[in-house]
Each structure stands twice: as structure tokens, then as C-alpha cells.
């Protein structure tokens, strides 16, 4: 039976991910492909990714099905993979028993998906806004379990906001350091090393520059003449040229102008690694500075370039690898409308890479960025901490956008009441089966979390039933508390996504009846 084979694979995968659920997770050691030292992991998504083939081919299909769902959860939401895994297993196994007893898998699937909507509605009802450093810190702590990191992320996201541009880099020493950079910057840096050679720290800064916004390539010096002429006629003392490439001969013209001392000139590489990114970057730069972008695809006529086409900023700077502006002089109303458009696009996008790219653009336009520097005794520790910081940041963003839920599995546990209410009114056999499955499943994350923290789930469940709605086990203090009041919070977006993926994924898996294996299957490490 396909279902039983799937179950073997799902159980095998969930068995290694289950210990990572909760603020006091157990770690999972996996051997590396390239060396003998094991990799220590507490992230269900990464653990799932490392397991890419079970010896039992039938079981492998079930494991890979779940693996794909967990990786989606990890990529899109940054956290909640263990919750997804535990829920998925409970629903699949419950559904499998029903189907084995003669139930209709297709009808059950429909009812389970209806039930998922009920769960999401109930979770929406419990959502609390996340505002201020303390609340953000609490959400971060629930995800990463590291008070120092949670504190830093609380401060950072209170400043940069939900769309803020945030990077994690390897630092020195043992402390977590953070750095805030005002304004916008892009990778690329100065187009010519000579422009930086005589500057302290190899960095040039221009005050009140005119900004030529383009992705053009300049081969001949004459091509730059209209730009230089327009800047000179307008009396600009500093000029930033944004371009894809400037030949050595054309660069010579700029150097001659600089040496003449009439105008400080800096040429930098246009934003974006790809053409697509470049168009977006130029659009952002144009809105920030008020300049008219000259995009090569549109075959612009540079001869008619005029002084009013320049963008303006208070400061432009460039180093070898980066360049940026501070205090763009674009129209704030136009900039606000541009950000609104990008936010709407962000909401519509489904591809994680596209979403990240557009979020980075919004974050940059909001006026600054933050870098978290973290260190460790070994490369493994550094990579582990960076991974934790990045996925916690991802979940924090979700919490800032969609709010938080009482943590510790309590929000899901509160779904028992509406489920029970619907069960009491339900008459259809499939609907009743689906509701019973979900009633059992919503307890599983809390039971697992409690067990992982070294407590007895049955005793805790009894204590919670006595305490009433909203109460849960603070596994750090070991006390039964009102989770929202105690500040034990989970990201609502993460939890809701986990529920939706687990229920719809398990419901779909239950409908699988036939497995076909390739004789020589292609190996794919990416889920």
C-alpha cells in the first residue's frame, strides 16, 4: 500500500526534525558529505535538506514529499519547519487510518482543507500587533532561543522596520556588533580605481552632487561631453556618473576635468547584477534623487541631456566595492507612491528570490540599512549562528507585517474550541473524520515542545485545561503562564503558513494511490 510506504518515509523524516521544536530544542548531528566532523543543526528546514535519499524507495517518496514542503516553509517564512513536520505527520497518519478503514481520501482532503481555513480564522482572531523593541525581541527569542541575538534583532528591526535592508556578516571577537548605515548603497563601487587611489580609506565622498542616472556604456570621451557640459553650465561643483561601463579613454576625460579642479567627478557602476535588477535599481535611484534615468534599452539621446535631468543628493560616496547616496532630493510624494507600488508587488509575488529582491529595494528606499556582525570560535559555529540570525530575522519580518500569536503551541491549542464546535454540528462522515484528525493534530506541536523541554506532556495538558484559554507552559521558567501577557510570542505569519502547508500537504499526500519509480532517478539535492 502506497500510504504505508509514505508513512514510513514521513515518520523517518519527522523523527529527526521533531527534537528541534521549541525554545529548548535538542540538536541533530548529521555527517557532512565532505569530511568526518558532523554538522550540528537545530533547523528543521536545513535538516530536511540534508536528507535527500532513503534506501527504501517507496518510503523515500513520502520523505521527499514532506521535505519539499518543509523547505518551502523554511525558504518563505524562515521558521516553523518543525511545527509543519509534526502537524503534517499527525494529519497524515490520522487520515491514513481513516482511509485504510474505507474512508474516501478525496472527500477527506476537501474537508481537511475546509478545516484548515477554520484554523486560520481562529488564529487570525488571536493575532496581536508587534510594536516596539521589546515585543520584537520576544518574538525573536521564541525563534532563536538566544537572548543576546534576540536583543540585537529587537533593536535592529525596531529601527529598520519590516522591509529594512539587513545583512549578517562574520565579525571578530565574541560580541554581537551592529552597524547602521544611513542612506542607500549598492554593490559595484567606483568604475575606476584611480578615482579612489589618493583618498584616505580608498573612499570618495561628494557633497551636493548632481547625479547622472544611467546604465549606458561610454566608449568615446565625446559621448560624455553633453553630461559634463550640462553639469558645468548649471554650476555644479560635484558630479556622480552612474553607468555600466566607461572606457579608459573616456575615463581620461573625467580625470582631466578632475585635475583641472573645476568639478569633482565620480563614476560608479550602475545598480544590480542583472539587467532586470539594473532597471529596478535605476528606477529607485531616479525616484530617490529626482533624476531622469537613461536606460540603454530605450536608446536614449544623450545629446539632449539637460541640467534638469540630473538627480540630486546631499552626499554621494564610493569605495572599491560599494557606492551610495544620502539625502536624495527626489519628490517625497513620488517616492512614497513608488514604495507603495513595490509593496503591492511584494504582496503579489510568490517566488522567494523575487520577494527578497523587491523587499531589499523597499528597505533601501526607506532610508537605511543594518548589518549584524557575529563571530564564533569555529567556522561551524559562525555559520550556525549566521543561519539562526537570518532565519530569525525572516520570521521577525513576518511578525512585523502580520503580527504575533501566543507562543508555545497555545494558539493552535485554542483552535480546539471552534473545531469541537463544528464537530458537534457536523453530520457528514468525512467532515467528522477530518475534524477529529485536526483536533488531535493541533495538540501535537505543544506536546512535542513540552516533551523536548523535558516535561511530561499529559501532566502539562491537564494543567493547561485547568488554567484556561491563552495559558501555556513557559518552558524556560517551567511555569504555566498567560503566554501573551508573559510575552511568549510566535510570528503569526510563520504559524499560519505552517498550518496551511501541513494540512493541505498532508491532505494531498493522502490522495496518492500509485507510485512510479525511475530506473535511474536523477539526483537532486535541492528540494
Amino acid at each position: 500500500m502506497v500510504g504505508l510506504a509514505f508513512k514510513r518515509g514521513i515518520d523517518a523524516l519527522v523523527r529527526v526534525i521533531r527534537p528541534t521544536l521549541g525554545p529548548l530544542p535538542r540538536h541533530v548531528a548529521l555527517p557532512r558529505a565532505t569530511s568526518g566532523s558532523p554538522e550540528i543543526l537545530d533547523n528543521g528546514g536545513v535538516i530536511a535538506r540534508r536528507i535527500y535519499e532513503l534506501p527504501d524507495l517507496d518510503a523515500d517518496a513520502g520523505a521527499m514529499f514532506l521535505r519539499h514542503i518543509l523547505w518551502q516553509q523554511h525558504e518563505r517564512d524562515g521558521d516553523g519547519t518543525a511545527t509543519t513536520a509534526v502537524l503534517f505527520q499527525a494529519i497524515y497518519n490520522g487520515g491514513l487510518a481513516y482511509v485504510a478503514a474505507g474512508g474516501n481520501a478525496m472527500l477527506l482532503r476537501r474537508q481537511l482543507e475546509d478545516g484548515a481555513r477554520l484554523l486560520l480564522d481562529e488564529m487570525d482572531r488571536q493575532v496581536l500587533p508587534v510594536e516596539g523593541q521589546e515585543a520584537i525581541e520576544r518574538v525573536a527569542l521564541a525563534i532563536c532561543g538566544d537572548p543576546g541575538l534576540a536583543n540585537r534583532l529587537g533593536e535592529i528591526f525596531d529601527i529598520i522596520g519590516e522591509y529594512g535592508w539587513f545583512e549578517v556578516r562574520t565579525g571578530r571577537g565574541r560580541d554581537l556588533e551592529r552597524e547602521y548605515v544611513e542612506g542607500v548603497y549598492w554593490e559595484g563601487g567606483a568604475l575606476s580605481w584611480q578615482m579612489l587611489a589618493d583618498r584616505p580609506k580608498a573612499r570618495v565622498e561628494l557633497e551636493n552632487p548632481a547625479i547622472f542616472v544611467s546604465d549606458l556604456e561610454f566608449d568615446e570621451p565625446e559621448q560624455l561631453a553633453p553630461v559634463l557640459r550640462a553639469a558645468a553650465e548649471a554650476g555644479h561643483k560635484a558630479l556622480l556618473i552612474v553607468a555600466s561601463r566607461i572606457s579608459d579613454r573616456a575615463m581620461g576625460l573625467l580625470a582631466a576635468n578632475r585635475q583641472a579642479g573645476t568639478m569633482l567627478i565620480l563614476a560608479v557602476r550602475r545598480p544590480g547584477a542583472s539587467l532586470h535588477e539594473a532597471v529596478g535599481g535605476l528606477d529607485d535611484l531616479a525616484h530617490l534623487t529626482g533624476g531622469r534615468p537613461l536606460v540603454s534599452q530605450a536608446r536614449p539621446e544623450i545629446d539632449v541631456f539637460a541640467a534638469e535631468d540630473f538627480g540630486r543628493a546631499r552626499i554621494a560616496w564610493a569605495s572599491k566595492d560599494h557606492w551610495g547616496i544620502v539625502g536624495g532630493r527626489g519628490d517625497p510624494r513620488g517616492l512614497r507612491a513608488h514604495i507603495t507600488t513595490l509593496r503591492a508587488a511584494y504582496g503579489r509575488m510568490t517566488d522567494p528570490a523575487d520577494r527578497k529582491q523587491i523587499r531589499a529595494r523597499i528597505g533601501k528606499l526607506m532610508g537605511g540599512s543594518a548589518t549584524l556582525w557575529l563571530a564564533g570560535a569555529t567556522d561551524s559555529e559562525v555559520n550556525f549562528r549566521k543561519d539562526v540570525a537570518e532565519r530569525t530575522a525572516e520570521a521577525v519580518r513576518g511578525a512585523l507585517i502580520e503580527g504575533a500569536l501566543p507562543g508555545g503551541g497555545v494558539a493552535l491549542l485554542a483552535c480546539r474550541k471552534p473545531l469541537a464546535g463544528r464537530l458537534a454540528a457536523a453530520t457528514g462522515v468525512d467532515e467528522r473524520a477530518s475534524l477529529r484528525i485536526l483536533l488531535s493534530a493541533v495538540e501535537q506541536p505543544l506536546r512535542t515542545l513540552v516533551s523536548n523541554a523535558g516535561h511530561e506532556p499529559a501532566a502539562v495538558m491537564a494543567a493547561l485545561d485547568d488554567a484556561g484559554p491563552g495559558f501555556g507552559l513557559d518552558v524556560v521558567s517551567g511555569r504555566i503562564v498567560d503566554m501573551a501577557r508573559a510575552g511568549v510570542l510566535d510570528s503569526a505569519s510563520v504559524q499560519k503558513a505552517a498550518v496551511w502547508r501541513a494540512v493541505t500537504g498532508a491532505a494531498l499526500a493522502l490522495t496518492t494511490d500509485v507510485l512510479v519509480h525511475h530506473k535511474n532517478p536523477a539526483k537532486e539535492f535541492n528540494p
Partner: protein
Amino acid sequence: MTENAALDFVYGMAVSQAFVEDGCCFAARTSGLFRSEDAGITWALAPQNLNLDAGLAALAVAVSPAFRTDRMVFAGVAGGVLRSLDAGHNWEAIPLPSPPPVVTCLAVSPDIEQDGYLFAGTMEDGIFRSPDRGRSWHSWNFGLLDLRCLALAASPAFAEDETLFAATETALYRSTNGGRAWRETGLPLEASPVLSLALSPAFRADGVLFAGTDAGQFQRSRDRGRTWEVLGSSALDGSINAVLLSPEYPDRHHVLVLCDDCLWLSRDDGATWVPLEGEGISAVAAPNGLGTGAFLLAGTVGGGVAHIPLAG
């Protein structure tokens, strides 16, 4: 009404908390920062020890809320901030990071003696924050899409709620982390620019703040800036350049506004307004509240300072 010799335009006024006893007050003028020790009867150029060129315009002035004890005064000028630690006798010029910004407004933490926080709004460069009583400055403009700052106001409970409001040309912003990041309030965008702000002395409890707009709207929020309502729209017809609340607010619902160059007083939280005597006024301070028998110090477009008594 008495008026001394007119010099020029008065951008802002600030008075000592012990004004009734010490008569100390300051006027930010086109011709510089002026100080009076006799309740505004006579004035002298304040930062004499700096040997500044005559004509260094002062665009804003603020005294420390703990002026009685800390004697601190600050003034906004082109390129930086002037600071005095002895009630305006001696001054130091503190430049803000280059390119030199023009400081148009100041906000002082009510707890500056303890936390040292001071904020400067600028004409083109957003908002600068000093954590050490004005000695050093850094710009903090995260979330601020418009860097042309017109007005700043700190919560009376800043030490606890770290809340500030900043009005720019195109929106009103709020910070809840001591000026390190800014988010737009719920004030409709079409209401901007806001020229003046005033927070209830009981802001932490009642969440009330007022905003006067360039278009003559007198707006009130009762929920820390999330939602707004327009008050007394028929009486006020002009730019609302200043808003002052009674120190006893909300027990006494006295509100004063400077609408264009005239003063209007409301004793019912902005529902109805009565005009006060005088015109050509460009800045105002209320040294002893807005009750009957109190008086106002009014800087004028000509550069003079007038005393305006508040009748019953």
C-alpha cells in the same frame, strides 16, 4: 501691549521655567539669538563670546525643561547648534555633520538632565539626534521619506515612551524609539505640511496631540497619532504656525494658536475660538500658562517682542 525696538523677524521664542522670578527668555531672530533678563523688556545679542559674524540667523531656540537647575539653552542656526550651559551667558557652536545642515527646529527631552537627549530638525537633512546634551550629533532618518523637517515635538513622558513627532513637508512621522526610526502617522497626506505640534502634558495617559497645518487645519489625535479629526475649521483661516496648550491640560482645555500672524484662543479644546489683540506676530511663548491674568510673549514680523495680556 508694549513693544521694544523692532529689529527683524522672530522665528522662535523660549522662556525659562522660572520666568516669573528670573525674567529670562530668548528670541531666535534673523539677526541672531537674543537674550533678555527682564521679561523681554530689553534684549541683547546672546552668543557674544563666540565673536560670530553679525547676522548669523537663529531659526529655533529651546531651553531645557530643567532650566532652573541645568541652565541649558540651545539654538538652531545654519550649520549647527549653539549651546549654553549657563543660562545663555556663554555659548559654544557645535557643527552638525557636513554638508552643513540648517537647523529649523529643536526638541529637548523632558528628562535631558538624565538621558541627555536633544533633537534637531533641519531644512534639508532630516533629523539629528544628540545623546550627550548637544555635544555630538548623528542623523537618524530611518523611515523618513521627506528630509525637510518643519516641526518637532517630544512626549512629556519621553523617558518612558521614547516618543517623538516630526512634521515634514509631506507627512507627519512618529518615532517610538527615541528618534532612531520614523513611521508615518495616520494624518491624511493631503493635510500636510504640518507647521506646528503640541502634545498634551498628560500624553502618556491620554495620547492627545494637536497639529496645525499650512492649510489652516487644526487637527487633533486622541490615540498617539493613529487617527485624526479636524477641529474648529470655520474660525481659523490661515497657516497655523504655532500651537500652545495650557500646562494644566487636559484639566483645563485652553489652547492657543498662531494663525498666520494673529493669535486665537480656545477654552474648549479647539471647538470655538476667539481672536486676541495684536497682529504681525511670528512666534509666541506663554511663560505662565494660558489662564486669565497670564500674558504672552509674542515675537513680531518686524523683530520686536510684545507682551499680550490674557483677559478673562
